[in-house]
């Protein structure tokens, strides 16, 4: 038997390699250099590594090697776009965590590498050209997140969050794996390009060789096995993206996990899951659009309605933002359902917008925390507008953006999502979407009126110095406004990243 060395294109995985090296360096440096309370040097090394990763991703724009490593990794613009989003997410999370590590009694030597390793998982998911790769990336991401969720060792809720997330997450991974097996059973391959070629017309993502199978679609049949497989892929990925009805873990885990980790999970896992969903469904199953978009349309409606209506009743801002993040996953899913280039472009733009506004909102939640108490009840926000005007202003911008009020990134994002939905003829979905966002306005502006129109019920104590977290919140607020007023460049990039979708 002849062993053919696979095509080892190191450039294709350069950003992932840079991230991996950064994580290892941080691990080693922590052992060598004596500990300081904040371990600022670890944060700085991580940020430098992230900058290099982002630089490599930008340099690889238009590199377009879609089946590197024997058809395992795709280094196209879609990967690079998401790589940059992931770098933004991890960098912001590091900024938001740095001031609090001491207060929360975290150990930075493990915290930063775990964040970086989970980012590697996300990058693998976004660059996956094979279902196995999706699974590996997802597991790397998930296992890091299980640990991070339990990082507040002294709080029982944090441990509970970790265990809950692990048990349910393992179950979801099982679904994903089973789904992969069933797809393999139909298409005789786990490579996305090969599956696409076996099921329909898509051949642009095919690696050098694919097993030959008679196309079941061409034969006019749609095997139940394949549909079941697609359904299970939706369950597995939908769990990570927190789509209803696979969202039940979300509020408890988000509430229990340390706030910086919650912020990270709420954007990172979602972005990675949607990157994988776009890849899997647009490359492997473009010939089955009517089938999977019908499934996803129902899920999108349930997700938007459940997320927004249950968020109204929350008194804890972390739980409120948890349900709001479910709702936002629903909006993004609307764009996926559109299953056209406009939709994919909107997925990318909205993911970017959502990342900035949600991270910013959580940064404010962190800044309201004090040693020993998190201050996460909505009532704690009363009067914030006059105690800390800049902080409240930033929060108001994030809330308005999440609610989709112009001129913010959230508005532009929703605008493009509903444009894509109407383009695909999904009028009903668009109507449910806009009405759901009206519901959401209620709980977002509640935060605003608490901050500006209600007298504080109790004193929170002096605000601790948190320059890094404040920087993260400030940058996010500016970015949300800039993306809201001048979204042209980001839209152009998003469009270039999804050029392969017709």
């Amino acid at each position, binding site marked *: 038997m002849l062993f053919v060395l696979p095509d080892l294109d190191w450039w294709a995985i350069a950003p992932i390699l840079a991230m991996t090296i950064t994580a290892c360096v941080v691990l080693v440096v922590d052992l060598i250099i004596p500990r300081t309370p904040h371990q600022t040097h670890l944060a700085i090394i991580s940020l430098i590594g992230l900058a290099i990763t982002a630089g490599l991703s930008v340099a690889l724009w238009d590199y377009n090697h879609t089946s590197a490593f024997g058809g395992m990794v795709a280094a196209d613009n879609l990967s690079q776009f998401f790589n940059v989003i992931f770098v933004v997410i991890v960098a912001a999370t590091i900024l938001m965590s740095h001031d609090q590590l001491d207060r929360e009694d975290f150990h930075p030597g493990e915290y930063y590498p775990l964040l970086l390793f989970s980012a590697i998982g996300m990058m693998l998911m976004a660059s996956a050209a094979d279902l196995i790769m999706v699974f590996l990336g997802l597991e790397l991401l998930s296992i890091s997140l299980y640990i991070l969720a339990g990082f507040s060792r002294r709080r029982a809720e944090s441990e509970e969050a970790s265990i809950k997330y692990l048990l349910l997450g393992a179950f979801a991974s099982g679904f994903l794996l089973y789904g992969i097996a069933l797809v393999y059973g139909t298409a005789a391959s786990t490579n996305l390009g090969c599956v696409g070629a076996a099921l329909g017309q898509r051949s642009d993502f095919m690696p050098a060789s694919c097993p030959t199978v008679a196309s079941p679609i061409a034969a006019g049949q749609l095997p139940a096995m394949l549909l079941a497989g697609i359904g299970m892929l939706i369950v597995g990925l939908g769990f990570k993206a927190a789509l209803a009805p696979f969202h039940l873990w979300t509020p408890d885990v988000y509430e229990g996990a340390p706030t910086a980790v919650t912020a990270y999970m709420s954007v990172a896992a979602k972005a990675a899951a949607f990157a994988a969903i776009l890849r899997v469904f647009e490359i492997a199953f473009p010939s089955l659009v009517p089938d999977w978009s019908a499934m996803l349309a129902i899920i999108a409606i349930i997700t938007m309605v459940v997320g927004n209506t249950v968020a109204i009743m929350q008194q804890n801002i972390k739980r409120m933002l948890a349900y709001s993040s479910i709702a936002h996953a629903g909006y993004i899913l609307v764009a996926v359902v559109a299953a056209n280039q406009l939709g994919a472009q909107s997925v990318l733009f909205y993911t970017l917008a959502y990342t900035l506004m949600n991270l910013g909102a959580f940064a404010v939640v962190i800044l309201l925390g004090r040693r020993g108490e998190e201050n996460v009840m909505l009532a704690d926000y009363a009067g914030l507008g006059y105690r800390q005007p800049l902080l409240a202003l930033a929060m108001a911008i994030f809330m308005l953006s999440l609610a989709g009020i112009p001129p913010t990134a959230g508005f532009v994002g929703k605008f493009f999502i509903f444009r894509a939905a109407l383009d695909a003829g999904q009028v009903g979905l668009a109507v449910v979407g806009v009405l759901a966002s009206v519901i959401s306005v209620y709980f977002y502006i*509640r935060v605003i009126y608490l901050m500006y129109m209600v007298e504080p019920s109790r004193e929170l104590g002096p605000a601790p110095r948190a320059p890094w977290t404040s920087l993260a919140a400030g940058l996010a607020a500016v970015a949300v406004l800039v993306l809201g007023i001048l979204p*042209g460049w980001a839209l152009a990039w998003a469009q270039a990243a999804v050029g392969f979708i017709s």
Partner: protein
Amino acid sequence: MEGFPLLSLVIFLPLLGAAIALFVPREQIGVLRALGLLASLVVFAASIALWFAFDPSNPDFQLVERAGWLPGVGISYHVGVDGISLLLVLLTTFLMPLTFLSTHGAITQRVKEFVVLMLVLETAMLGTFLALDFFLFYVFWEAMLVPMYFLIGVWGGPRRIYAAVKFFLYTMTGSVLMLLAILTLYFLSGSTATSRTFDFVELLRTPVPTTLQPWLFAAFALAFAIKVPVFPFHTWLPDAHVEAPTAGSVILAAVLLKMGTYGFLRFCLPLFPETAVAVAPLIALLGVIGILYGALVAAMQRDMKKLVAYSSVSHLGFVMLGLFAFTPESLQGSLIQMVNHGLSTGALFLLVGMLYERAHTRLIADFSGVAKLMPAYAAFFLIVMFSSAGLPGTNGFIGEFLILLGTFKADLLRLQPYAIGAGAGVILSAVYLLWMYQRIFQGPPRPAGHGEHLVELADIGPREIAILVPIVVMILWIGIYPKPFLDRTAASLDKVSQQVAVAAPARLLAGGR
């Protein structure tokens, strides 16, 4: 003036003022107030230039500015003025300085935030009137909500949060469906991504399939009907008005409600003429119900501000009736009546606010014989009240007369019965206004208030007179010599009237003129 971006200057000057105000220390209340007044006066001066630069004979958009914004998506920064928007822009810029002047006694807390929000609101309002790109229009339209929400919620009365949230949710519900309708129009405008546009002027040339027209009309009409508000979508209005501070009420009544009627005139009529004609009897009926219902409910109010709020429902019923009679006269009447309502209701809110600042009560029963205690105030109140009741010699008469005349002339739609109903509304408005005047201003003079909270009333001072004189001048000017105003609106309104007439179904035209 060719090529000079006058409209952008008018739109964004207030925003510049707001940006400067951000850097003034919050303790400098006097400086902040002066800055707000100065900024709004500069904007008013710029809009006066607009009045002279405007060519009355041209029915199309003038002083147009256009620049690419998101060219790949068909979104541009496109603004222009025509006879429909000109008067409303001037109304806005005219009232803003007066509103600022009126807040010296009422807004003493958080003056910095107040000045910033008012100026941001002015930019959003002017942008809404002048935008000719649907995306731009929607951005300004929604951006208006936020400052108004804060104005009601921060400086308002006891139930301000309830009123602010209700205002926000009501208007937002209407506008998101309009957003979907805007997107649908965008997809109708071309078959490929590059040929589609959000440009209003180009969308006017896009034929809308008759099957889609009713749906799109309904989505637009709901957004505008909530804003006007047309009966039965008016329930947010009394809450918002009663709880808002005087400045908020003035802007809300004078300008924000006009957004709704402006939207009908600007978008619904020219874009969906067939549907507009088909539903005209229904909307005219809702208008007449609004006129009578608003007037009857106003008559029963014990709170002056609520009375004025319900009188708005009644007055805007007239505007709606005039808009959906489609004749040039009725459209002119409606547009003039929009301005009139802005002047007279704005002034009434200012007057009620002045009394409230003195007595800290708005209950009609708490006052008696005010005419003897505050003679100057009573004189101004009388003139404004006559204007609101539509007495000849005041602006209200011109508007209501033109609307009724135009409605009677709308033979094709057979709206004469509606005009008779509306005529009854004129009488009712005299009833509730005169009755209020009688109870407050006549009778034996006594201190205002009830129980132990009695206040001796002092007449209005020079600052308050300075606020009221310009409004009274405008009321009498439009009432006695409306030609300059009618001239500038005629060409654009004739065009709308013709657009509707041309597209109207043949059965309606069969009657002929």
